């Protein structure tokens, strides 16, 4: 297994984000006062200020998928040596690869999304490019639409196979709300108990309101550099110590990887690769950030990434193990369900904050290593962040 060079290991030296809760209220009550690029710009300025770098020093740029790469770069007057457009986890992985390979030594990662203001649709004829997607031909005629419905269908089968109850599933949302309650930026901070979870309406049965992520405006940015620069510029660089990926594309439109194996083989392969590259083990992980558009993601990730045995994910969550002070805190900022739906970008920032020790009331004590796990639309990837670069 190839091992990373410590000298060129990528490290996060700056993070920035918008004020999710304030903006949520603003948009709801009065309307937006900016657009996706505006949120991105705010986040970028905050991250850059934290990093101590001048804008001219930025060598690489990766923009998230919800705004145009060109327009973002034009607005921020960034003319990088190397660039890409990627989802959150893949953006970090690519930045790390470019830095480790010596192609660039500084990369800005920038995301902005005004989905709440423009009422972005995630189901129905206007969802996700609608007719441009193959799945539209094979789902929409029968009324099938939205990722939520796909996860509901997957969880339905899981519940049948593993005897998971709706009450047990509800503990995912309940546990995450507890983390969010300690996060002043989180949008949903009212207490959520299991009875309130069960009383809330179904969206696509068996998933209910609190199983679904938020839809809100915001922006996130990160600045990554190589280890040498990070040591010069930053008191507490957070290392991208390992990463991995595995896709399951065969029979994806048929939903086979979801329904027949809950993405397990891809998650297992990814976990092995991440841990091996990072030279870490499951016991070393102090907190887990899981891409959580829907609550089932957490149970599938706990099992697929092998923190628990197959079939034990629900029991693990119901026991309180993923709550604050639990054995393995999950989505310590509240995640997509309760903090903000920044499509995985907020999970990267939270990992960094926990490892810096700046997570305030929600700080996981002794946090040295955080794993990010993402299974979305058949592509699985993972990132191990660490306060230490690791031994070579």
């Amino acid at each position, binding site marked *: 297994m190839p091992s990373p060079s410590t000298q060129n290991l990528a490290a996060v030296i700056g993070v920035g984000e918008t004020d999710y809760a304030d903006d949520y209220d603003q948009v709801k009550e009065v309307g937006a006062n900016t657009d996706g690029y505006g949120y991105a710009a705010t986040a970028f300025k905050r991250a850059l200020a934290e990093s101590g770098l001048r804008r001219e020093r930025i060598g690489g740029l990766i923009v998230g998928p919800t705004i145009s790469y060109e327009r973002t770069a034009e607005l921020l007057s960034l003319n990088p040596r190397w660039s890409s457009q990627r989802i959150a986890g893949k953006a970090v992985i690519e930045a790390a690869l470019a830095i480790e390979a010596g192609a660039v030594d500084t990369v800005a990662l920038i995301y902005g999304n005004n989905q709440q203001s423009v009422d972005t649709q995630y189901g129905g004829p206007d969802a996700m490019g609608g*007719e441009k997607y193959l799945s*539209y031909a094979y789902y*929409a005629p*029968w009324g*099938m639409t939205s990722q939520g419905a796909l996860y509901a269908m997957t969880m339905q089968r899981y519940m049948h196979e593993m005897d998971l109850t709706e009450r047990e599933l509800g503990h995912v949302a309940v546990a995450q709300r507890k983390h969010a309650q300690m996060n002043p930026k989180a949008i949903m901070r009212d207490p959520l108990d299991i009875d309130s979870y069960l009383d809330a309406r179904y969206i696509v049965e068996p998933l209910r309101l609190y199983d679904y992520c938020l839809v809100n405006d915001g922006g996130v940015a990160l600045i990554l550099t190589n280890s040498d620069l990070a040591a010069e510029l930053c008191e507490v660089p957070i290392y991208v110590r390992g990463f991995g990926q595995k896709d399951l594309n065969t029979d994806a439109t048929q*939903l086979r990887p979801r*329904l027949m194996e809950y993405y397990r083989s891809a998650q297992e392969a990814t976990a092995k690769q991440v841990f091996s590259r990072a030279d870490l083990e499951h016991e070393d992980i102090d907190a887990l950030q899981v891409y959580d558009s829907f609550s089932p993601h957490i149970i599938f990730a706990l099992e697929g990434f092998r923190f628990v045995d197959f079939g034990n994910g629900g029991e693990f969550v119901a026991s309180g193990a993923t709550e604050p002070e639990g054995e393995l805190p999950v989505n310590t900022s509240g995640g997509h369900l309760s903090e903000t739906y920044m499509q995985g970008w907020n999970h990267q920032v939270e990992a960094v904050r926990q490892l810096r020790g700046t997570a305030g009331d929600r700080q996981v004590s002794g946090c040295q290593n955080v794993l990010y796990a993402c299974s979305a639309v058949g592509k699985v990837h993972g990132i191990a962040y660490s306060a230490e670069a690791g031994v070579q």
Partner: protein
Amino acid sequence: MTGYPDQVKGYYEETFWDYIDQQELRLQQCADCGEWRFPAGPVCPACLSDELAWKAVSGEGEIVSYVVFRKQYFDAYEPPYNVASIELAEGPLFVSNIVDVSIDELDIGQDVSLVFETVTEDLTLPRFELV
């Protein structure tokens, strides 16, 4: 406007829906290795051959999962309505609706059989009923 989603037809979907209009559910079967594939496409994902034949499926299948929509996304589909994934006897998983069934009666593992429903002047849909 029928309220049904606009039909999306790539090159191979034309044939798929033409057969359905004639009340036949035909999928492609690779003429080289015999694997059935779905959705329709130009090559066999198993062996990459471009030799194929459109063959009628038996119509038999089993429910591998289902959901009940409680939110409306399409004019033609008023909640509550079910959507199921059916494992056809030939192997592929097929998204459709189970007809003439109440939500309480639905279960994973039930055997189903193909029926065609003409839902509008222009649209026939392959759906399934419990056997």
